[in-house]
């Protein structure tokens, strides 16, 4: 983690950091306020290899020196790490339980959600926000979302999540006020699954 960065290899970040981070944030805020709704962040930034455009946009918008970030081993040490260190200036942590944000490059390799910081009884906001790159936000197993932010129910069908992910998410919701907040990212698209959201695989 201490080697010098090869600046020639670093992809650009936001062209207009003030405007673009604001525009990205509003989309992300809406996605978190309305779980399951899809935000399109295509306008924002081309991330480095290994990092989806939407994940890169969230990183530039929310990461800084106050947020320890856990990088999945597929990203750590590579161009993506250099890009995040250069543009966001965030500390990296190898401990999932210390991370404010976690970036998972391949959903299949996602550590159990319970490995991340679950927050404190008095300060549940200190839990990890886990950003998971998936193969796609459509075409997978239909999952029904209910909870705050959802009028009746929202059906999503992300592809490429590891077996047992939805059971983990159910456990995560059941322990509210503790729990991680999840964002699923595919290319330029993002949807949020905050801990307040109940997710159930549609039967039949």
């Amino acid at each position: 983690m201490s080697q010098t960065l090869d600046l020639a290899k670093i992809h650009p970040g936001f062209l207009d950091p003030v405007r673009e981070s604001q525009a990205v944030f509003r989309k992300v805020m809406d996605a978190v306020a309305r779980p399951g709704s899809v935000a399109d962040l295509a306008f924002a930034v081309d991330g480095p290899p290994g990092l989806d455009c939407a994940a890169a946009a969230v990183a530039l918008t929310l990461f800084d020196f106050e947020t320890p970030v856990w990088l999945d081993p597929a990203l750590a040490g590579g161009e993506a790490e250099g890009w995040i260190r250069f543009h966001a200036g965030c500390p990296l942590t190898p401990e999932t339980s210390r991370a404010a944000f976690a970036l998972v490059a391949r959903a299949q390799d996602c550590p159990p959600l319970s490995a991340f910081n679950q927050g404190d009884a008095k300060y549940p906001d200190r839990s990890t926000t886990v950003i998971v790159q998936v193969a796609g936000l459509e075409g997978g197993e239909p999952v029904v979302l209910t909870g705050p932010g959802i009028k009746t129910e929202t059906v999503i069908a992300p592809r490429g999540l590891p077996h047992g992910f939805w059971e983990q998410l159910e456990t995560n919701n059941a322990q509210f006020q503790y729990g991680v907040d999840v964002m699923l990212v595919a290319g330029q698209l993002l949807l949020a699954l905050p801990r307040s959201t109940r997710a159930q695989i549609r039967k039949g």
Partner: protein
Amino acid sequence: MTPSNAPERYYNYAYLDEQTKRMIRRSILKALAIPGYQVPFGSREMPVPYGWGTGGIQLTAAIIGPEDVYKCIDQGADDTTNAVSIRRFFAKVADVETTEDTGQATIIQSRHRIPEKPLKANQVMIFQVPQPEPLRGLEPRETETRAMHAYAEYGLQYVSLYESVSAYGRIATGAGYPVMIEERYLMSPSPIPKFDNPKLNDSEAVLLFGAGREKRIYAVPPHTTVRSLDFDDYPFEVQTWEQSCALCGSEDSYLDEVDLDDAGQKMFVCSDSHHCAERREAGHAGPMAGHALDQSKEPAP
């Protein structure tokens, strides 16, 4: 107007520096993920004193963009000093269009009212909050109230409501009436009249609350259950008036009582100034229509 990022711009876009915005943005996301829970944040010094909406201004500054249309009200009115100056502030530092029209606005910042016109899904409502802790009047120690929220130990709040019933024969709280979010977190709706409490429930818009001096942000996402506390035999009810609005004749809006002279003359008018003006334009008239107060008086920008 100077483009927002021109080098000669004296302040950063929307006044706050980018790191502060990121910190506030992170707090907003956690607040939305834990509806009703008060997220501590690093409240900054603002160019107005505490008590003048520093929490609301910081929330607005963290989310606003040049595409937004901004409305700011104080007790429902668009034309009061605080509302006018905050509106001008954002017109200047964020290059946004401002409006008095509730339907046009994408961000509505408010001190102590929710507009009468139902909010829409593309709107964000920002509340200025003097005291975010609903239990503070009952328990002065933050360490204790935090523990009470952590373990959902809200018996004390019900005792307080019961004491109000036993002393006054009813739950006498008129503003800042405590609400329960998704049956988990007790929340202060900020000192909005309890008349507005039902508008918090199952709202279409995102509701954000900011307390600058107390350094807390909390939120209610759209379509969230917000229940005003009550008892089976003393159910929650909102204020009603025998009068209708003296200017527009509205019978279902929140009314302010205005003293007209020393002889005890008074009138009741809509607290929501835009709602009232819109009704008058549409031809509605109350018993005192044509009164000297019956004119739109937004000062030139």
